[in-house]
């Protein structure tokens, strides 16, 4: 204790106290606010709907309305289906924290069970595409080639040929798909979140969605055959690199060549003259 009291006037003491206080507050916040660990899933369907409705009313109804009828802040959720809820909530896009050109993915707020409860509740309101079974988005190595054709045909215009994402109008953008969970990719195709078009099972049958996912996941581990990928963004990033980094390197090299003289020093000249005279 004595050592503590002598050190409390140390110039860094205030910072140590501040850091400890912040850590304590953060730990307290995390303990109370972070999503609870997955509870047991032994809910009856009725409990699931009741829980889902309760979560909906507390977290979603401000924008989507008490009966999911929609408002000026958010669209009606009647008939969007459980797949839409699962996509929006499990990627953290919903609940939205702020208005903007586009609601963006962020840290999730609800755990898997809570998400499932809300999906079941919304599904009960008016049907729509349900949460897909995991066999639908499992990898199929034999479909990679077909998936590449389909991806370049229907997806690459916005998401880039390597799934790196790209810009749309007015601050909107197509997100990169390099980290996206296969389930979320499947649900996005199925439901067309925000400005993405809908690729329902009639126009893009499940087997083809599976092929696209197989292509995307496989291409993540493909080597860059031509050298540094530079974000796999194509000629823009490659041109920018060579016209700035490459050209500056060449200029510096030229300057370096010209800055180094090949002339002999005066003493060297004198030495050579002496040697010559000595002969």
């Amino acid at each position: 204790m004595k050592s503590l009291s002598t050190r409390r006037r140390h110039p860094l003491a205030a910072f140590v106290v501040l850091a400890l206080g912040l850590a304590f507050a953060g730990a307290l916040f995390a303990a109370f606010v972070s999503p609870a660990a997955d509870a047991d899933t032994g809910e009856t369907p009725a409990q699931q709907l009741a829980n889902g409705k309760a979560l909906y009313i507390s977290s979603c109804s401000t924008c989507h309305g008490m009966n999911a009828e929609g408002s000026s802040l958010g669209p009606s959720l009647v008939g969007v289906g459980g797949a839409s809820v699962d996509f929006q909530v499990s990627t953290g896009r919903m609940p939205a924290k702020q208005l903007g050109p586009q609601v963006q993915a962020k840290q999730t707020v609800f755990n898997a069970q809570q998400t499932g409860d809300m999906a079941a509740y919304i599904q009960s309101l008016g049907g729509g595409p349900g949460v897909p079974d995991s066999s639908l988005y499992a990898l199929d190595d034999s479909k990679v080639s077909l998936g590449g054709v389909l991806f370049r045909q229907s997806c690459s215009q916005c998401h880039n040929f390597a799934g790196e994402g790209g810009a749309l109008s007015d601050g909107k953008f197509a997100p990169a798909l390099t980290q996206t969970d296969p389930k979320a990719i499947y649900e996005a195709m199925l439901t067309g979140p925000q400005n993405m078009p809908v690729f329902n099972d009639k126009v893009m049958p499940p087997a083809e969605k599976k092929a696209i996912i197989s292509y995307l996941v496989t291409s993540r581990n493909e080597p860059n055959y031509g050298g540094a990928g530079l974000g796999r963004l194509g000629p823009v990033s490659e041109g920018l690199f060579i016209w700035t980094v490459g050209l500056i390197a060449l200029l510096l090299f030229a300057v370096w060549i010209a800055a180094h003289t090949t002339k002999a020093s005066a003493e060297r000249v004198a030495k050579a003259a002496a040697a010559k005279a000595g002969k």
Partner: protein
Amino acid sequence: MSDETNHPNMTEIGYDEERGAVAVEEHGFDGHGEVVPAGDPFADPGLEPHRPRITDIDAKAAKRAERQVALLFALSAAATIGFMVAFTEIPRTAVVDFFPIGPVSASNFALGMLLGMALFSLGAGAIYWARTLMTDVEFPQERHRLESDPQARADAAAEWKQGVEDSGIKRRPLIRRTLLGALTVLPLPALWILRDLGPLPGDTLRHTAWKAGERIVNNNTVSLDGATGQGVRPEDLTIGSLVTARPQSALTAGEDFNNMMAKSAILLVRMDPADIKSKQERDWGYQGIVAFSQICTHVGCPVTLYEQQTHHMLCPCHQSTFDLTEDGKVIFGPAARSLPQLPITVDADGYLVAQRDFDAPVGPSFWERG
């Protein structure tokens, strides 16, 4: 040295083999042929005294430099041979992990490095050679007037005149005219052979493969060999759906496939009919399903960036933006014409078909379009 035009030879540029570099320094000051007034603030300072290089005064150093240059040239040759070896010997599928870049193709990596080394060594050797061993004695090179002197010009003019007179071209108009005629028709064959570039396109740019009753085939259902595909029923499309599509005849087009699709690629979009502002667009669509050409009217890229909430269709090449609620008109970007709409309806089997061909030519503007 004072009159430059009279001495168009090597002594004028201030370097003399016999006298060497020292002599150049001595007369470097008066090389301009002008009397320098006393106290001229802009007096020509002349050349700095020449300083020898190590390789000029030390035979050992010169020998070493020679070996270094030769080594660089030999390295270049070795890298070139290595390039050829790498081209045939490294398997196409081999991959190497190269630290800052990650996994790359071993073949590409080796080819690039070896060709780079060959060119770099060649250049480095040449520069090192020039800087260490080639002469570096400074000398001014004076400029003189490019014009010949008046006498030479007068002589040339007189010779030309005499030549014209001697040829008799003025007195013999028959020869003069046939010669001019022959020279006039000589370039014509260069134009004449252009006719073999092929038949003129005629009106093919104005027509596509779409005709009345032509079924619309969903690109997503087309097999990898392009031989089979399924039609689209209106109930397949939910609001917000986007489908790229082709005419059914494209499935059997064979060699003509690319030419056909270059004009006939379309996309189908379904939106709430209430969102469509143009009556014509509603009439040409089917219950909110509208079909537009997929070929951008700017330079022909495939427009497929569809924002389903704003109904904007963007082109990925130059960001031309078309409003699909109002006849595909351009609202941003370099495209000058609306995206042409294909009138569609439903056939007896319940599949979406074209009512007729496009009303306007699809794709970029062309010369004869007017």
